[in-house]
């Protein structure tokens, strides 16, 4: 699995270096993700060691958000002040976005099917 872990860290490192050098606004790890995707596409497949390293990182993925998430205790003022704006944006925004996305994709899929006939 060590090889897989080195690959993940190396691609992140590469991504961060590219972001710094070319002054890109895209976060380094995301560039690393895109590069690893390209690498897999060129290589046409993964290998066991990488599969294991990826599984290790993604199995407990939500655990990794906890440190950042706890910062919420420093944001109590904003949340109490803007509670209703946030609640409406989250609730209405999510429902409407979900309905629109599904309907839009359904419409395009149906149209594509008709064209094929």
């Amino acid at each position, binding site marked *: 699995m060590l090889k897989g872990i080195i690959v*993940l860290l190396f*691609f*992140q490192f590469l991504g961060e270096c590219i972001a710094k050098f070319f002054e890109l*606004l*895209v*976060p*380094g*790890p*995301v560039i690393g*993700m*895109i590069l*690893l995707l390209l690498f897999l*596409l060129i290589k046409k497949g*993964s290998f066991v060691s990488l599969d294991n*390293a*990826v599984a290790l*990182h*993604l199995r*407990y*993925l*939500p*655990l*990794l*958000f*906890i*440190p*950042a*998430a*706890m*910062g*919420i*205790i*420093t*944001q109590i003022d*904003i949340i109490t002040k*803007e509670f209703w*704006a*946030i609640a*409406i*944006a*989250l*609730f*209405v*925004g*999510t*429902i409407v*976005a*979900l*309905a*629109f*996305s*599904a*309907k*839009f*994709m*359904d419409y*395009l*899929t*149906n149209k*594509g099917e008709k064209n094929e006939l």
Partner: protein
Amino acid sequence: MNYDALINYIHSTPLTWLILTLAAFKLGIIIYEKFNKHTLLQPIIIAYVILLSLIIYTNTSFEEYFKSVEIIHFFLGPATVALALPLYKNLKYIKSLFLPIVLTLFIAGIFSIVIAVTLLWIFGAELPTILSMTTKSITAPIAIITSEQIGAIPSLAVGFVLITGIIGALFGTIIFKIIKIKHDTSKGFALGLVSHGIGTARAIEISEKAAAFSALAMGLSGIFTAVFLPMIITFFK
């Protein structure tokens, strides 16, 4: 026996919060599985409540807590890179519905950000909140690093990401029924696009195809948002 030295050690070692954080998450997983993986009982939500109570009860500052568990935060980087593999595995589905996928990704992806931001703006929220809302539909690791990039508040961003995921997972199936969505591929893609990983967990219950399209949408929208959002925001600033 040196009582002071002991207390001093417990207060200063990162092990204390590291163990508590891992244990709270493990307890979250146990409870989540006991209740048949109910959407509202996400392991992270349970861990969140436990740790928040402990932090407030022990009067620990966020800076102190974060310093102790920074090693966990570090792994967001390699974990983001790791997301390339599930995306690679689901990329083959792109060919079957290329145009619907690409158009929905761009148009519905932009639409979902615009609607949330507009609502916040109408109801008088301020800029930090609005910026933190822009990453609400992408998977949390990418949301955290992108929100750091655009000058939003990462902790708010994670909170918004989790709530968006839960709302989508709770109401998705009902909405699809009401507006009569025909294809499982559309249901899955919408769930992944709007409600990332939590939506994808829900899509698994619809069908295998829905789950694959959900994972595909989640990966693509993560990249799409992280690439374009910082440029757009810098342009407006």
